[in-house]
């Protein structure tokens, strides 16, 4: 299931609901992405971030996330997938994204969870804008994110 929403969500409640299973699921893997409170790669000496605004491309966002979800189901034998991604303004510490995967065995759940967040970062049309004391900055794409996606392209079964 894909959910694109402005509202905050309760990570624990979402995972608990996702984990309510049939008994056929042997493992649930989750990734939660949070708003950091500093600009750049490392916290030492970095300007503080007061808030972040996520913009997206309504329509294309849902289409891309559904395609990514379908690709995860194609590659692994999964019982279920949940991706929640927020847009709008949020404060440091708030969750931005939650990825949950469930499977009979742990490897499929763990690998597909990492695949989903790696792919999402370079294929879903979201853009982050950070508010700092010096003004607002659009976050630049990271080469490491492209490399993380490329790794899964190479290992496509």
């Amino acid at each position, binding site marked *: 299931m894909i959910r694109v929403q402005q509202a905050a969500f309760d990570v624990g409640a979402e995972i608990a609901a996702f984990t309510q299973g049939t008994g056929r699921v042997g493992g649930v893997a989750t990734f939660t992405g949070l708003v950091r409170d500093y600009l750049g790669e490392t916290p030492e000496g970095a300007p503080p971030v007061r808030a972040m605004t996520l913009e997206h491309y309504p*329509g294309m966002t849902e289409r891309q996330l559904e395609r990514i979800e379908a690709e995860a189901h194609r590659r692994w034998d999964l019982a279920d997938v949940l991706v929640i*991604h927020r847009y709008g303004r949020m404060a440091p510490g708030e969750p931005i994204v939650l990825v949950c995967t469930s499977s009979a065995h742990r490897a499929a759940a763990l690998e597909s969870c990492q695949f989903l967040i790696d792919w999402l970062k*370079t294929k879903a*049309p979201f853009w982050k804008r950070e508010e700092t004391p010096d003004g607002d900055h659009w976050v*630049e794409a990271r080469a490491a994110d492209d490399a993380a996606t490329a790794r899964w392209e190479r290992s496509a079964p």
Partner: protein
Amino acid sequence: MKVLYFAWLRDRVGTAEETIETPAEVATVADLMGWLAGRSDGHAKAFATPDQVRCAIDQAFAGPDASVSDAAEVAFFPPVTGG
């Protein structure tokens, strides 16, 4: 066709959306970027670094050589930074 701008491209162009009629010689995404760059100073700034601009045609990613002749909606935006 409808043209959408996101993130800093929208900031530079000064609008999120516009409807345009392109001349026949605008065949590809690259052609369209060059043509749009001539519309205003803001457009010129938005398309000044074409390697930093990504495109979607009818909500699917499209490269610079993709045809825009049948496109209803073309979007321009920076490399994505979600997750």
